């Protein structure tokens, strides 16, 4: 067959795989194939190509025009048969194709045989259709002629009729049956050639008497006639001939048909087919067996499909077998109809244990509700469920955590159930628990740590803070703090520039730099805080937010102040000890000389008179002279100044003086009383400040006796009284207010606290900080040594392990607070 003799088919198919398969089949069957991927392409190809004998088209072509439209378009200018090919079996689509001049409809993947037969049928139908068309035209043309001769004929007819009648009667009946036979033969031939099955018949000598085209093709012949007279041993399937012969023999001998059995057949090209064969005995009119009629169907493809189906089933079954997931199928009544083999392995029950049981049996009662709800959702809305966690009782009565997901496949005819895939998530649960514990641990640290922790956005808006942070700043809750702070931290830093400076220097280090800054509490009061900030970054390094730690270090700073103070004292003490001796000697010289000078002028000494006489004068004249020239005054002032200096040195020396008086257990309230009495009777106080005019309020708590040095504590109290009296003397009181001292003592937390508050002029912060420094005094020169409070400090802090602080602000008076440790008396 030359190339040009081949029929050309335009295949319109958008699915590549299908197109390839069909093309292969068509080419194998000697067709030339043109392939269009879309309706539009098909129209274009049809336009440009004259040699197209048939359109084989898919209906649904994805986008663009569909197959029926494309065919309609092509058929407008081309008269060719069209055969539809589709997976659709819906009536309306079939109907749609039938509206067009259609030569058939093939369901996709029905196999080579059907496709080729349908093609043949389409060609045949088309040819027949064409023939009818030409005949119709010829008929119409001759109709007129016929009409004319009809009249002639009619007259002749009458003559003939009589003759004919006779003739017909005389004609043998055999001629008629011969005609009938011929018609029947033609019919049979058509069936034989178009039926998509192999048909053959053999005589009693096992030789082929006839067959249809398909058998001839299998045998490698071009026409059925070529087989006639040959037997199976002359065929390509001679390998199977022996078996065929045995079957034929048995049919002929027994007269029984052999129906629908499978056997092999080797084709002319060597391919071995699987056949479904039926052989029946051929009988003549008398009922005698004259041969065998056989048909076979090529079921190789079906067999192969079955084979691959089997393999695929095997594969899936082994996947399910080895899967660690459990698969259940349950019916609409929630009864389990399938359990995968892994179920027994994981849960420890015998195989098939769940079959017929309720899907809800063995589920932990606490989890039952959520599982039932989920199942209800899945079965009602026919969609896939959400992963659901629940506990299931294992064979050993322990609970296993499962995560299951249900898909509703009730309407899938192959499943007809809800498929549940369940997985043992005990391990995951365990690690989740570890994570939860760790989270809880850090949460606890966050909640309970004494250091304040906070997190803000990059531009400083508060996100979160811990209780310690709330406490430090005095806020009630996170919301409270957010409301107050979110205008860019203006309410946190006493100096807003500090915040800006810190923010610009934020480090990404794990241990960020700490800054000491003045911070503001909710109530506006300032305090010193240690603040450290750092960026929290995402994995790619972009800063997500700022986190910081804050500590209230006011107490620490106060302690530091005290330490610095003590340090100063010790320095002074060291200096004083070294200096005292060196200064005392010259002071002694000054004072002793001044005294001697005074004595030798004004003293009642025998030497004075004799010396005056010896000098040619008398002591009275000398004394008068000294008076007139105020020499007495000079000497007295030298002596007084020396005395003052000596006192300073003596006071300084107290810092270095070792304990001289012994510690004894005493009631501080008693010492306070003594100190008040001393103050009342102090000459200096009486004279200059009139201590008696000061109203004293005493509020003594009940105190345990503590170990202390009476005179030293007394000295401290007296010193505070003196300072208070001097300070209050400087203040002008209104009529209804006078100078007052408020004394309070109490015992708390293993220490005794003594508060002495005056209502004097008070002092500013700068002064308050310096009052304990040696030689710091606000009094006029000469009225104080500037050592009183330093010595007090030394006595309380170094000598008694206590603390002494002062609180004051201008106009508000001053309060001294002394604490002394309560040391248990060893009995």
């Amino acid at each position, binding site marked *: 067959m030359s190339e040009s003799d081949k029929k050309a088919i335009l295949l319109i198919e958008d699915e590549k795989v299908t197109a390839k398969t069909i093309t292969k089949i068509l080419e194998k069957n000697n067709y030339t194939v043109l392939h269009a991927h879309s309706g539009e392409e098909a129209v274009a190809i049809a336009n440009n190509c004259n040699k197209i004998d048939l359109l084989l088209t898919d209906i649904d072509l994805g986008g663009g025009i569909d197959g029926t439209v494309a065919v309609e378009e092509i058929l407008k200018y081309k008269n060719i048969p069209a055969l539809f090919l589709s997976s659709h079996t819906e009536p309306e689509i079939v109907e749609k194709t039938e509206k067009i001049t259609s030569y058939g409809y093939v369901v996709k993947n029905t196999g080579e045989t059907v496709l080729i037969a349908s093609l043949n049928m389409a060609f045949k139908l088309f040819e027949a259709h064409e023939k009818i068309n030409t005949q119709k035209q010829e008929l119409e043309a001759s109709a007129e002629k016929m009409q004319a001769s009809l009249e002639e004929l009619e007259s002749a007819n009458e003559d003939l009729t009589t003759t004919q009648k006779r003739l017909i009667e005389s004609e043998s009946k055999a001629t008629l049956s011969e005609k009938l036979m011929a018609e029947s033969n033609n019919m049979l031939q058509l069936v034989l050639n178009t039926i998509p099955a192999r048909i053959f018949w053999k005589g009693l000598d096992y030789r082929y008497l006839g067959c249809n085209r398909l058998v001839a093709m299998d045998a490698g012949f071009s026409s059925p006639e070529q087989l006639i007279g040959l037997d199976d041993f002359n065929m390509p399937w001679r390998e199977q001939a022996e078996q065929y012969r045995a079957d034929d023999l048995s049919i002929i001998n027994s007269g029984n048909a052999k129906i629908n059995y499978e056997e092999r057949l080797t084709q002319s090209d060597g391919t071995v087919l699987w056949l479904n064969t039926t052989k029946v005995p051929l009988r003549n009119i008398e009922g005698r067996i004259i041969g065998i009629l056989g048909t076979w169907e090529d079921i190789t493809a079906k067999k192969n499909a079955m084979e691959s189906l089997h393999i695929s089933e095997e594969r899936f079954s082994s996947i399910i077998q080895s899967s660690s997931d459990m698969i259940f199928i349950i019916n609409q009544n929630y009864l389990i109809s399938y359990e995968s083999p892994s179920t027994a392995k994981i849960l420890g029950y015998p195989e098939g244990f769940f079959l017929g049981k309720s899907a809800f049996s063995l589920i932990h009662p606490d989890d039952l509700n959520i599982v039932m709800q989920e199942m209800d959702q899945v079965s009602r809305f026919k969609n896939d469920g959400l992963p659901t966690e629940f506990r299931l009782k294992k064979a050993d009565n322990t609970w296993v955590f499962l995560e299951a997901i249900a898909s509703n496949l009730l309407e899938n005819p192959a499943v007809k159930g809800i498929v549940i895939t369940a997985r043992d998530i005990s391990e995951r649960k365990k690690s989740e628990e570890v994570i939860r514990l760790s989270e809880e641990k850090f949460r606890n640290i966050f909640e309970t740590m004494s250091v304040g922790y906070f997190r803000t956005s990059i531009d400083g808006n508060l996100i979160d803070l811990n209780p310690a942070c709330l406490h430090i700043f005095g806020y009630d809750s996170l919301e409270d703090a957010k409301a107050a702070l979110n205008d860019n931290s203006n309410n946190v830093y006493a100096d807003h520039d500090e915040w800006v400076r810190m923010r610009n220097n934020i480090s990404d280090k794990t241990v960020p730099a700490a800054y000491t800054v003045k911070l503001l509490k909710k109530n506006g009061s300032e305090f010193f805080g240690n603040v450290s900030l750092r960026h929290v970054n995402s994995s790619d390094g972009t800063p997500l937010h700022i986190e910081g730690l804050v500590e209230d270090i006011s107490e620490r700073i106060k302690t530091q102040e005290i330490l610095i103070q003590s340090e100063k004292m010790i320095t002074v003490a060291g200096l004083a*000890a070294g200096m*005292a*001796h*060196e*200064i*005392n*000697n010259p*002071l*002694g*010289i*000054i*004072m*002793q*000389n001044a*005294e*001697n000078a005074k*004595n*030798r002028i004004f*003293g009642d*000494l*025998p*030497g004075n008179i004799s010396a005056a006489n010896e000098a040619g004068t008398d002591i009275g004249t000398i004394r008068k002279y000294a008076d007139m020239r105020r020499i007495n005054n000079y000497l007295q002032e030298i002596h007084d100044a*020396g*005395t003052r200096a*000596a006192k300073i040195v*003596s006071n300084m*020396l107290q810092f*270095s*003086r*070792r304990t001289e008086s012994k510690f004894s257990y005493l009631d501080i309230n008693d010492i306070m009383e003594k100190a008040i009495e001393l103050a009342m009777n102090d000459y200096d106080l009486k004279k200059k400040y009139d201590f008696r005019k000061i109203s004293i309020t005493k509020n003594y708590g009940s105190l345990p006796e503590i170990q202390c040095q009476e005179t030293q504590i007394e000295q401290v109290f007296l010193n505070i009284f003196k300072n208070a009296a001097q300070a209050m003397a400087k203040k002008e009181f209104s009529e209804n207010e006078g100078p007052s001292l408020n004394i309070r003592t109490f015992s708390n937390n293993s220490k005794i606290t003594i508060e002495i508050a005056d209502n004097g002029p008070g002092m500013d912060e700068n002064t308050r900080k310096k009052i304990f420094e040696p030689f710091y005094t606000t009094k006029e020169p000469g009225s104080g040594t500037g050592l009183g409070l330093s010595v007090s400090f030394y006595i309380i802090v170094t000598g008694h392990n206590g603390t002494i602080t002062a609180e004051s602000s201008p106009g508000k008076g001053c309060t001294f607070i002394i604490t002394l440790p309560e040391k248990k008396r060893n009995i």
Partner: protein
Amino acid sequence: MNMKLIVIDDEKNIRDTIRDYFEDNGWSVITFSSGEDALEFLEKETTEYIIVDGRLPGMTGTDFIRKASLIRSGIKYIIYTGSYDFQIGDDLRASGITEKNIVMKPVMDFTDLHNALEHINK
């Protein structure tokens, strides 16, 4: 009758003013600038009172008293010192020295020193 007093101080001005005061008051006073010189004197003669500086170059006031006590008994001592940390050791206490024998330098008035001398009870 004249009381006998020895004043020992390395500071000339100190010992001279003390001498002047007590001489004006009718005492008989001898001064020394070191404990060694005073001991030498005590080998030959005795005295009723001695005012001695605590801190002296060479022999200290304490050493002097201990040694002097071995030579002469019955002398009344005053330790006149500018050091607050002056400690009376056991040896001095053995020689009968107590807090009453210590006068802090400088005295506000010579009478303090005078009274101290007269109040020593031996």
